[in-house]
């Protein structure tokens, strides 16, 4: 008797992709979980402790505390994006993505499985960075719901962005270009280390066109209660990007762009 297709088939398929992703992330933890924590620790030591002492306060908050949400967001963004690009492109490069393409699973389940895997890594690293931050600045929380929802949604948005990158990538260099030349500059200029109000004239307006600014500030509100932008606008921007990137990802996966001949 063969397997028929039902909601149960999809649920089992989704769980399988997620288990496979989580197993992969935990199996290579020295590559996936430790490096971002070490990098963030260095940021806290250099920018927080050494330079931060001279900066004093930013937006009425101790500089060390001010940079904590931004650094957590930086690690969530890079790990969410990086996980899905390396995992999905690796599967495409090694041809084992065909295991999924010939299965009964529809595109949205495959996408949900990979996005969930990326979220697991991003939120785990985010949690570890939060623990490190607690060592330097103590633990603080203004609104748990806002904090968790912003982290969750940001991880989804960048997982979707990474997925599109992986679909179009032909070689490993192609998955390194966007993180290096687009994502990292946008994150650094997205108010991780400074308040956008400090930017002179037109540059403040330019910075407001950067979606990462809204994510960093929304998280800063969730953790510290301060933000350069309105919380509603931040949620709107994140959901808008999520909807656009999600639709594009599903369209590409349904058409088999870069995957089916």
């Amino acid at each position, binding site marked *: *008797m*063969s*397997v*028929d*297709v*039902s909601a*149960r*088939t*999809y649920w*089992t*398929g989704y*769980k*399988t*992709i997620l*288990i*496979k992703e989580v*197993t992969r992330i935990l199996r290579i933890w020295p590559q996936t979980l430790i490096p971002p924590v070490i990098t963030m620790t260095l940021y806290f030591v250099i920018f927080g402790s050494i330079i931060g002492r001279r900066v004093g306060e930013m937006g009425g908050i101790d500089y060390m505390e001010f940079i904590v949400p931004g650094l957590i967001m930086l690690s969530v963004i890079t790990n969410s994006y990086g996980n899905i690009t390396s995992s999905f492109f690796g*599967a495409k490069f*090694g*041809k*084992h993505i*065909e*295991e*999924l*393409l*010939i*299965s*009964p*699973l*529809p595109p949205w389940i495959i996408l949900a499985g990979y996005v969930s895997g990326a979220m697991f890594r991003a939120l785990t690293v985010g949690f570890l960075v939060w623990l490190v931050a607690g060592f330097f600045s103590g633990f603080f929380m203004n609104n748990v719901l806002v904090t968790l929802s912003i982290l969750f949604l940001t991880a989804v948005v960048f997982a979707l962005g990474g997925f599109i990158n992986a679909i179009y990538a032909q070689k490993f260099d192609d998955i390194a270009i966007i993180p290096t030349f687009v994502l990292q500059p946008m994150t650094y200029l997205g108010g991780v280390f400074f308040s956008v109000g400090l930017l002179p004239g037109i540059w403040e307006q330019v910075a407001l066109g950067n979606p990462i600014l809204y994510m960093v500030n929304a998280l800063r509100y969730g953790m510290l209660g301060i933000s350069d932008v309105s919380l509603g606008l931040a949620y709107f921007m994140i959901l808008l990007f999520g909807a656009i990137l999600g639709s594009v990802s599903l369209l590409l996966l349904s058409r*088999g762009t870069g995957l*089916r*001949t």
Partner: protein
Amino acid sequence: MNALEVRDLRKVYRNDVVALRGVNLSVAEGDFFALLGPNGAGKSTLIGIVSSLVNATSGEAEVFGISVRKNRSRAMAQIGLVPQEVNFNQFEKPFDIVVNQGGYYGVPRRLARERAEYYLKKLSLWDKAFGPSRQLSGGMKRRLMIARAMVHEPKLLILDEPTAGVDIEIRRSMWKFISEINAAGTTVILTTHYLEEAENLCHNVAIIDHGGIIENTSVKTLLGKLQVETFVLDLRAPNRTLPEVDGIEIVQRDPTTLEASIPKSRSLNRLFRVLEEQGVEVISMRNKANRLEELFMRLVGIGEEVA
């Protein structure tokens, strides 16, 4: 109901290469079907379309009456595919590869584990189940892909050259396993370069060349079309005079070996009578080539003679 029904299937690649030119093909449920053709004939493209890895330019493919294009998920649930190239994650363990594949088809994890153990044992891979799969030999990797394709117990098993580069002992054990699967009710479609494999295992055969089906019949009927068979005769003593038999072409390969090409209309008795009259003693006789191979060469090379 047919296990596979392909109607007017066309595939034109972006570089304007026409891989399939309106292929029509039916494979009955329970059949053991051979799809033969030279490299580049369109076999893998056809299998790719049926397994949804390749998008057809036009035409229709149905698996047990389910359209691959309109109802991909249900159609795919019926198929198990063993591709030509190794396509599993070589950093994973064979056991995990098979279990995960079961999950993609909705097989609950506990059942997938039981089936993985069963099929890996059946294919003599159990002792390698928890080691790195990249260390498996070529034959083991192919057997692993068969176990992976069977974990959801499909109704249609498609094997794209499963025994290529596999030694004869392993090949025979794979034949035995696939025959058992077929006997248990699974329809099997096999592409192979070993025509002996198709002749021994398959009931029906299609020959594809330049993107079109040039023959689609039973193996028995196809072999019936063989007009001339060539036999190799081993002689007890060196022969000096080439025997002459009307209608039979005889060639001397070496002093103790003759090759006789005999049309079906002629009797072998006449050949032996003449040889006996000339005092030539034959100690053994065999077909020069695999019969299907001979026919295949004619169909693909000089198709007009038979078709």
